[in-house]
């Protein structure tokens, strides 16, 4: 059966179509659903096998990027979200979706103080859009089989990953993507340890700042005629396979 991917849309979400395209190519059946439909009960997380929280500026980043969407998720949909995680469904949050998942506490998801993290303002103090190289780390449900670096754009102003206990996350193989070493601009936001993406302890919940959904067609690669590489479709295929 083709797994169905739920892409929830808050006011200000804007990479829902991009994410849907990636899941479609990866063999899932994506559906972008406004939160109002989930609240009214027309849709439920239980109808889907994958939860994918897309990028954008939910609520205009008011009161901090991802904060209000995160509070929506644990406020309005606490039971559905708990069931989704308990059922072992793959969950991904990209950019603003990552920020929101961090606000829910699902990421990094460790118990106690090690579970505290935030995505702070970029070191440069500004929003920045550029292509980056992502080196995959330990394998997880989402990153199984990834060996070669992925390449895709970042587009964010608040992406510097700060964790209360990064060593603990590294220890349990939770850092699954790092920016190419060498400092700015390889690491566009100043994340400590060049951290670009992390999973929860189960490896089923992935959050990352860069946009792999914007490099799923070869023609999207700006270096396609200079030996392009790093198509991100395998990431989505892994997620779909885990569903």
């Amino acid at each position, binding site marked *: 059966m083709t797994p169905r991917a739920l892409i929830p849309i808050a006011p200000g979400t804007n*990479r829902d179509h991009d994410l849907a395209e990636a899941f479609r190519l990866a063999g899932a059946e994506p559906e972008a659903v406004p939160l109002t439909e989930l609240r009214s009960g027309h849709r439920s997380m239980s109808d889907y096998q994958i939860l994918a929280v897309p990028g954008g*500026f939910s609520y*205009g980043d*008011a009161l901090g990027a991802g904060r209000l969407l995160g509070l929506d998720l644990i406020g309005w949909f606490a039971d559905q979200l708990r069931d989704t995680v308990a059922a072992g469904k793959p969950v991904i949050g990209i950019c603003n979706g990552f920020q929101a998942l961090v606000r829910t506490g699902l990421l990094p998801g460790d118990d106690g103080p090690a579970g505290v993290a*935030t995505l702070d303002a970029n070191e440069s103090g*500004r929003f920045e859009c550029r292509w980056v190289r992502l080196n995959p780390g330990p394998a997880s449900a989402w990153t199984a089989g990834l060996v070669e670096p992925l390449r895709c754009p970042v587009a964010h102003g608040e992406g510097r990953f700060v964790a209360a206990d990064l060593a603990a996350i590294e220890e349990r193989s939770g850092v699954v993507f790092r920016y190419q070493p060498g400092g700015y601009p390889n690491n566009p936001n100043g994340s400590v340890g060049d951290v670009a993406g992390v999973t929860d302890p189960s490896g089923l919940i992935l959050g990352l700042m860069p946009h792999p959904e914007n490099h799923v067609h070869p023609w999207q690669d700006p270096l396609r005629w200079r030996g392009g590489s790093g198509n991100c479709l395998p990431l989505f295929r892994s997620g779909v396979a885990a569903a």
Partner: protein
Amino acid sequence: MREGSTQHAFVVGPGHGDVDAVRAAHLFDLPVEQITRYQLVHVAGLLAEAELDRLARTYCVDPVDGWWEHAEPARDAAPGAGERQIETGLRPGVTDREGAELVRVAHEVGLAVDAATIGTRWIVKGQLTDTQLQALSDRVLHNEVIERWAIGHLEPAFVGDGATAPATEIVEIGGLDAAGLEAVNRERRLGLDPEEMSVIAAHFSDLGRDPTDAELETLAQTWSEHCAHKTFRALISVTEADGSVTEVDGLLSTYLRAATDEIDAPWVRSAFVDNAGVVEFDETFDLALKAETHNHPSALEPFGGANTGVGGVVRDILGVSAKPIVLTDVLCFGPTDLDPADVPDGVLHPRRIRDGVVAGIGDYGNKIGVPNLAGAIVHDPRYTTTPLVFAGCVGILPHGSNPTAPEAGDSIVVLGGAVGRDGVGGATFSSQTIDAGTAEVAGSSVQIGDPIVEKGLIDVVIEARNHALYHAITDCGAGGLSSAVGEMAEELGAVVDLSLVPRKYAGLAPWEVWLSEAQERMVLAAPDPEPVLAVARRWAVDAAVIGQFTGDGMLRVIDGDDESAVIDLDCRFLHDGRPQRRMQAVIRLHRPVRESVRVATGNPTGDLVRLLAHPSIRSNEDVVRTYDHEVMGGTLVRPYGGPAGDAPADGTAQIPPGTSSGRALAIGIGVNALIGSLDAYAMAWTVIDEAVRNAVLGGADPDRLSLLDNFAWGRPTNPETLGQIVAACRGCRDAALAFGAPFVSGKDSLYNEFVNPNGSADPVAPTLVITAVGVVAEPTAVPITGAVGPGNDVWLIGSPYGTLGGSHYEAVHGGLRAGEAGEVPRPDPGAIDVHRQVARLVNAGIVVSGHDLAEGGLAVAAAEWAFGGRVGLELIDDPVTADPHVLFGEGPARYLLEGRPADAHRFRAVGATRLGRVTDGETVVIGPITLSHAAIGEAVKGHQR
């Protein structure tokens, strides 16, 4: 506010150092050592201490390292020794997303919050006097137009809800003479001509009554330069250069629309009729094209002005039922290193304008999720007092999916936010010149956008379109409901009840509700409003039914139970009653000084370095990277490419999301600040050619281009200024005909003039921006950005010689001095053949990379191209000589192309000239010039550190 509601102020830490503010303070010689920002939250409501703590912890404080404390007395966020405190906050009524969200979420968890605003506490370290602190706040920390401030503690202030709305007033104009009418015109800032005032007086005299304030304001809006384009529709008596006199009956119809009609291109679906032009893209889809200006607001409140400029042009695209998919922006600023002492009173420093405008454009586009793909930044001293902001948008829609005929009985549905005193008078304001006092009176004419609401509008409109839920649609822009409903009701008439219009706060006069330019609103004519309202609810967008289209030809506006009409106007008078303006123009011919600067230099390498560092030529990569140019996943050619991502692209391209024909769209932009004051006719040819070149290098077919024109000039009542506009329009027509490229939409922004306190006027540099949009049949063949392969040949297509009049070479050698400029680029009707040749080579797949010759000519193009591709160049073949016309001359239809040696015969076959080759290494040789990558990088990117 409910009874017992109290006000609270708290600050949220940790503070963040603001190095940009410190740097800006130093620009104004203020002895600031450090500035730290804290979030300042003002709340009104029934909140006990524990509830305030819950509110702050849940919604304001970061879980990792955040904290909050009462604003007074503060402990951790308080000024220490040698530090002072300033607090700033938005004025009540200014759009405040964060405050509104805090109220919303507080209600969801049952906290009794009535109102909230988010401001800033600034802790400033440095020995500053109160006068210096005031200067710091005025020039760096706040903008009086939208913000309040205080040294020390800023008292919370919220919009009151007890205010009583003023009633509709009757304005007594019956029996007034011309001087009396002019007094009314001035007092109400109507911006009407004396003839127009007398036609209005006669109309109401015939009706046997005086107009209401709302009627007068509606007429002023509808007849404003901004909405009615009076100058471009005027009867102009043109005194030609030879002394003969020509009558021109409407620039728009005589030149711009005439060119489009004559070309009669089969791909044009509609031109000049709706909010945007519509052209065919492929067998399924059309593209909607529009570019707008937002100059006056951006001069006063750069962030808000540019922000709402983007919002406005996006709604223009939505106004033809198209989904926005590309943004563009062309920005013109004064020198950012200008001595602050040289900035006149009432004008913001160019650097602050630039920073604010760039932030405003990025904020809006990034938040609505539409990629910003093309643009330019131009610097010239004549933009210091009159900066220009051009914002463009491309949209996509299925063939035939934009209904344009409202029917009698249709409901008038307004989508989007509530109205306030936002932008009341914006259209009349933007049709007048700015002076030192404008910032004080223009407060309500400038506003902040809310891109999140606009994103919702996009979703609602596209879903409503897909289900054919409306008969007509338009945006609420300048003039608000007055303009939107007025235009839709032109043939039918309508009745509107203002009491049904959602308001942000009480106390608005009926005419203010009618004319409010509250942003992010669209108006639909819906046969059945309920399905539209349901779609709006699904996307969490506010919507209201405010009236109906009638069919009786009268525009009637009432206010609830009040029986007396706010407006009762015949639509024919409103739309056709305006007398045609009569104007005078004088054409002056440019008399070039031959070889003016050619002999002035013996240092071409130094000249090239100066040109590469010229503010209009150097890299804007740092700016462009603050815009999202990847969202939607369709981007094919980005503004900057190359191995290091810093090679400037000429044209950019996108495969529109949702299409499947395999085609792409390409965009090229042309703009020039230097030629227009010498020869506006030549400027039109120059910028059209530049836009075409850029589009062709983005992969577009030059025989299938559509153009947008944007004029920005000074006061057209000056006959010489109008003469330049006439000449530019003639150039537009002639070039468009020569290229077979029709104009499909355009916009003129006039009165871009700053009146100094002594009465003298600084007009803007005459500026024409052309946007060319084309179709790419073969996306895989689009040339690479930046030169690529050592060993490949470098070919010049077009003439080796350019001209120096109005060139950047002239500009770096003393600038433009009247009577000292050389020959300007000559119009070249044969240029289209050159563009076709290049397109054929591109489509044949043999152009590895390319770069057009634009500002700074061959040498600049070659240096940018090689550095961007991180390869060397050796251009030493004949005709590369030390002649500045060859190295730095500018002119139409010239390209550098890179080809593999095996394809040399194919380049020769089309008459290309081999200049040399791409080399390994980091040295660029252009005739007598030798420069390293390091030197080029320093020149083009040094300012970005």
